[in-house]
């Protein structure tokens, strides 16, 4: 098994998809000649040429909309939003145009495009370059949303997203790009969109998470006195209710750990669904571990406190399992 960087998984997924299907093109700011601000497209220009690896002006509305038009006309564009916040100047083309094209043409016109973006906090990029923002996309009819969590899931989700006949958003936690791990590439590997993975089995509680929080929860699993089952959601919409519900039915407890505020996160949807489907079968109240209701702070110490870490997740899970009560978040405890 070769040790590879997470960012290489993005590169390989794009490279393999382009090699297999001439319809695949990639677009974004500085992704071609410069190889991408995060070096996830390095070398693709040389291999696939300037007609398929396209540097764009700083015009998110133009190139996101161009991806919609190209997709309708037979291409499979993969667009990079350098930081997911940038789509705030172009959201319309994705959620209002791309996502309704199939409906408005009764299935005749489809938009097989992918928007991939770096997302999330942890590196001191400040509050306008550190959010997940999946809530801007989740639940939009016709649109799917995924979050990667390591090299394997990055490759598997990106390939599936590019194969998909409909628009898909793939959020890549920026903080993971520089992670290294053992992974053997397989051109045929896919993670079906809409399926979650049980990445650790346990019996005391089901902890549902995704993205950069997966490794945090894994770390917590080693510290907590509880034996927790960890589910990597992978696709936030449509999400894998079956896997989650089945797990909670076994463990009797549900905890969600996400890099989002309480009001914007996917934890509400998961907890609500499980509360309904597992009604009467839970040993403890569904519990959400989220960010505090504040923008992402820059200063290192603050950003570290702002994000859920293994110790905090451990405390929260231990408290829940021990008391079967939902513990208060850190910002409501006397610190």
């Amino acid at each position, binding site marked *: 098994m070769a040790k590879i960087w997470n960012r290489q998984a993005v590169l390989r997924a794009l490279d393999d998809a382009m090699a297999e299907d001439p319809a695949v*093109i990639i677009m974004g700011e500085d992704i071609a000649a410069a190889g991408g601000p995060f070096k996830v497209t390095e070398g693709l220009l040389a291999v696939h040429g300037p*007609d*398929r690896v396209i540097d*764009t*002006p700083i*015009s*998110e*509305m*133009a*190139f*996101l*909309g*161009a*991806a*919609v*038009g*190209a*997709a*309708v*006309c*037979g*291409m499979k*564009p993969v667009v990079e939003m350098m930081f997911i916040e940038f789509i705030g*100047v172009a959201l*319309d*083309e994705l959620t*209002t*145009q791309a996502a*309704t*094209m*199939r*409906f*408005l*043409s*009764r*299935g*005749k*016109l*489809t938009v097989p495009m992918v928007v991939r973006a770096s997302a999330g906090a942890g590196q001191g990029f400040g509050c306008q370059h550190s959010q997940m923002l999946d809530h801007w996309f989740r639940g939009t*009819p*016709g649109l*799917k949303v995924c979050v990667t969590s390591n090299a394997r899931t990055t490759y598997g989700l990106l390939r599936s997203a590019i194969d*998909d*006949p*409909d628009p898909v958003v793939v959020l890549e936690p920026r903080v993971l790009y520089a992670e290294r791990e053992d992974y053997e590439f397989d051109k045929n590997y896919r993670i079906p969109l809409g399926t979650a993975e049980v990445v650790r089995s346990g019996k005391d509680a089901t902890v549902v998470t995704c993205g950069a929080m997966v490794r945090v929860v894994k770390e917590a699993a080693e510290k907590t006195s509880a034996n927790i089952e960890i589910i990597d959601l992978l696709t936030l919409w449509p999400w894998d209710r079956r896997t989650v519900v089945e797990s909670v039915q076994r463990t009797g407890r549900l905890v969600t750990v996400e890099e989002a505020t309480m009001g914007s996160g996917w934890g509400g949807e998961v907890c609500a669904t499980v509360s309904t489907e597992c009604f009467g079968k839970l040993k403890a109240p569904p519990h959400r571990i989220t960010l505090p209701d504040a923008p992402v702070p820059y200063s290192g110490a603050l950003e570290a406190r702002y994000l859920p870490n293994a110790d905090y997740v451990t405390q929260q899970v231990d408290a829940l399992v021990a008391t079967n009560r939902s513990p208060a978040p850190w910002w409501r405890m006397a610190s």
Partner: protein
Amino acid sequence: MISNSNSPLARREALGDRREQLVRMIEIRNVEERIQKLFAEGHIRGSTHLANGQEAVAVGIARAIDPDDIVTCTYRGHGHALALGVTPQGVIGEICGRVIGCAGGLGGSMHLVEPSVGLLPTFAIVGAGLPVACGAAMAARARGKDRVAVAIFGDGSTNIGAFHESLNFAAIRKLPVVFVCENNLYGEYTRIQLTTPVEDIAIRATGYNIPGIIVDGQDVDAVAAAMANAVARARAGDGPSLIEMKTYRYSGHSRSDPATYRPAGELDAWLKRDPINIFADRLEGEKVIASGELATLFDDVRVAVEAATQEVLASPAPDMAEILSHVSARSAGGDQRWNFWSK
């Protein structure tokens, strides 16, 4: 004559004939009037945006491009849809929310569509169609097809970011796009000089180093000629153009708008340059139509459009299952993807 063909493609090809072009302009005029009436009769919901007065722009564009060139247009798209080939049944039917409509009643007045003649679902968000046209042009080039994309939008839309980004994007990539601005002097209820510091939209081409052309939008031949040049330029790989069609909408912005904001006499002045009359006179001179035949054509069209309207009113509402049939490839409607430029 229109009613003889229910194939959008056949209707489109018929436009090679000058007489048919005149008839199509009359059809657009008549369909818009009928839609107005259908609204009054309570057959139409929401809003609808008429383009009577702008017929020459629609037919002139349709004449100058091929059926498999791509068109992105706005909610003010009835005329363009008809010109491109969509049947009166398809247009009126969609606006009435019936199965017979070109989007099966799912879209409504602002979302007319017909892939067989290159019309993408018309865009209800100002500016949204321009980037999409750029993408269609990129696809044509990438697939080695000499197709062009035409983006049609209004004067008011040239103040939105997507206009700027799209012209810059198309210019820097020399994309085969023709940007057509229908300058009808108003954005909703506001006259252009209150929102736009330049009188001619065409001058904005300067900022992108592309041609900016001003055309008499009431003269179908002038429209077609200007389009032909821009299209040739685009196909030759010389990049995009911005064409400003000076035109006028006779009705208000949308159904309920009496357009009282218009200066006295403005409408009359434009009526004197009615695109249908201008073209009819010319065709009379060319002996393509006999003198006095115009009235007959109006009558024939009225009869045909009325027949189409009755067909629409006899057509059912879509099945409830349609709501969930076309959301994703997993929906009941399944994948029947249109393959542009397949041959």
